[in-house]
């Protein structure tokens, strides 16, 4: 039997295989196990229906945010179209489920693949454009897709949208938030694991190389454009899977949610969570969803308390303001995001009581 390692000190690696493990110590693995037990064994049973709803939203957004982080944080290709790609996934899912009668288990990956294809098309400008110019090109993509959602009525139902109801998985009713919680978080765990794997292989390395120095990347034998497209495809695949889950979760979809604001919210998630960090994407999704809930319930609460109703109407637009403020504060004080905060907290615990 192998020796367990609980401390990242004095454990000398004896093979290169040990070095490419995700967790350095068995402590890390133990925490992962505890986390999974909490996630699947405890949280769904102690959460109120409202809490489950919030957690499900977090899970869906986290999947999309991981995708966007692969594109922006790792490959350095800024996209303002992620919200629309999320919408493509939602529509693809809804259409496959209602018009083609695909079962849930096929709809989600199929929606991911369709969105990946769409994402690649809108990633084509990255062959020539960089930075701000690419940003504008993807913005155009966002608007084109929004237009398609509204105007292609025969397929998308126009402004009325599509409703997806009565979906089941292995005979379980997916309309139930607790059942759906399991579906979402199994997807999130699997998608996180895949992202971590991609990052530690040649694909992740190529993405990072393209982000940091595309001239040198090419000298390393990395074909830049195909890899940018691959990154767009993978990122959109994540958006598509998340979008399809969203369609089932909301049970009916209309074009409104998939606007530029959503794209910006996704970007906010990965900036606040930490660019170039997979766990950061999840932290960012948690932070943003929590912030949204606090803000919307805060204003709602003030509305209901008679005398302050007037004040509430004036602070309603504050939502955007607080959002912007949060992003700016993070960029100034912790540009590496929540992932870095988490790392600092963790290492403080590890080094306690000798934290210097």
């Amino acid at each position, binding site marked *: 039997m192998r020796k367990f390692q609980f401390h990242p000190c004095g454990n000398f690696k004896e093979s290169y295989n040990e070095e490419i493990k995700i967790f350095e110590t068995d402590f890390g693995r133990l925490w992962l196990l505890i986390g999974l037990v909490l996630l699947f064994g405890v949280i769904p049973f102690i959460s109120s229906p409202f809490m489950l709803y919030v957690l499900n939203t977090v899970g869906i957004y986290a999947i999309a945010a991981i995708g966007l982080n692969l594109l922006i944080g790792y490959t350095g290709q800024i996209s303002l179209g992620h919200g629309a790609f999320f919408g493509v996934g939602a529509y693809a899912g809804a259409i496959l489920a209602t018009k083609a009668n695909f079962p849930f288990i096929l709809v989600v990956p199929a929606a991911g693949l369709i969105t990946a294809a769409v994402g690649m098309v809108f990633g084509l400008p990255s062959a020539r454009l960089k930075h701000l110019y690419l940003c504008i090109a993807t913005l155009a993509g966002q608007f084109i897709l929004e237009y398609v959602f509204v105007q292609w009525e025969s397929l998308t139902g126009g402004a009325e949208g599509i409703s997806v109801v009565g979906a089941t998985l292995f005979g379980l009713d997916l309309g139930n938030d607790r059942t759906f919680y399991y579906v979402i978080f199994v997807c999130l765990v699997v998608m996180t694991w895949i992202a971590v*794997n991609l990052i530690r*292989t040649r694909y992740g390395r190529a993405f990072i190389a393209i982000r940091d120095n595309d001239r040198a990347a090419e000298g390393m034998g990395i074909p830049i454009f195909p890899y940018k497209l691959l990154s767009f495809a993978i990122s959109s695949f994540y958006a598509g899977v998340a979008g399809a889950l969203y369609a089932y979760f909301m049970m009916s979809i209309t074009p409104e949610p998939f606007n530029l604001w959503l794209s910006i919210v996704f970007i906010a998630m990965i900036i606040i969570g930490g660019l170039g960090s997979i766990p950061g994407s999840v932290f960012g999704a948690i932070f943003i969803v929590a912030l949204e809930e606090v803000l919307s319930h805060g204003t709602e609460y003030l509305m209901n308390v008679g005398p302050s109703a007037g004040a509430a109407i004036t602070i309603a637009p504050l939502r955007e303001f607080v959002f912007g403020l949060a992003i700016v504060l993070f960029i100034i004080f912790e540009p590496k995001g929540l992932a870095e905060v988490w790392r600092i907290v963790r290492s403080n615990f590890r080094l306690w009581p000798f934290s210097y």
Partner: protein
Amino acid sequence: MKAFRGEPSIFASARPEDKRAELEVKNLTLRFGGITALNKIDLAVHTGELVAIIGPNGAGKTSLLNCITGYYKPQEGRIFFNGEDITNLHTHTLTELGIGRTYQNIELFPGMTVLSNMLLARHVHCHYNVGKASLFSKSVRNEEVYHREILEELIDFLEMQSLRKQLVGALPYGMRKRVELGRALALEPKLLVLDEPFAGMTLEEKEDMVRFLMELNESWDQTMILVEHDMSVVMSISERIAVLDFGVKLAEGTPDFVQSHPQVIKAYLGDTSKID
């Protein structure tokens, strides 16, 4: 020369085609607007040779290397590598064909460790696909371990054991040049192209670098093109030297021949008046 250090297994290939590096540059002309950076250059490099290109600053040495490695596209002329016309191929394709290089202004990734930088160079030698990578299957794991072993051998060879986990951005300039050589070697190039590998180095660092290059060339038959504007080192290590000035090849031959060539002396004394 006797190797006391590591003997990297990637150098020890027994198949002659793995080492074959026949480069032929024919009548190459490259212009930038009104400037003619390269004017009708001819150059041939054969397997196992160490050829140096020298010339004053702005002579067009880097431009020539950039043409050979696909960064610049010449207006006229052709470049052949092992019989194949490579003039219009992309840099990444040339890397796959076996042309690896270092850059005059070091193009490493400063935010990454020495090891991560070198691992990037293994890209073309990874054979798994996206599907396998996303699951990190057994074969991917084995391949990654294999690449790590290759890199360790190179790190031993270049005497960089204590640097492997250090950020490249924190290393002194001379060390970065060595890391860049290591990264280029990790590409397993048939033709190694070095742009001013000694620039900005201390004397000790230069000596180490010369030692590595000599060993690569003599013990491992590594074919090399080496650009340098400082004549002294080059004279002692290369078999053949080509001299560029204002985009024109002034002379080519053995160090002794080049050294005594009147036009070369003229160019190096700073006489910029038109040379025949």
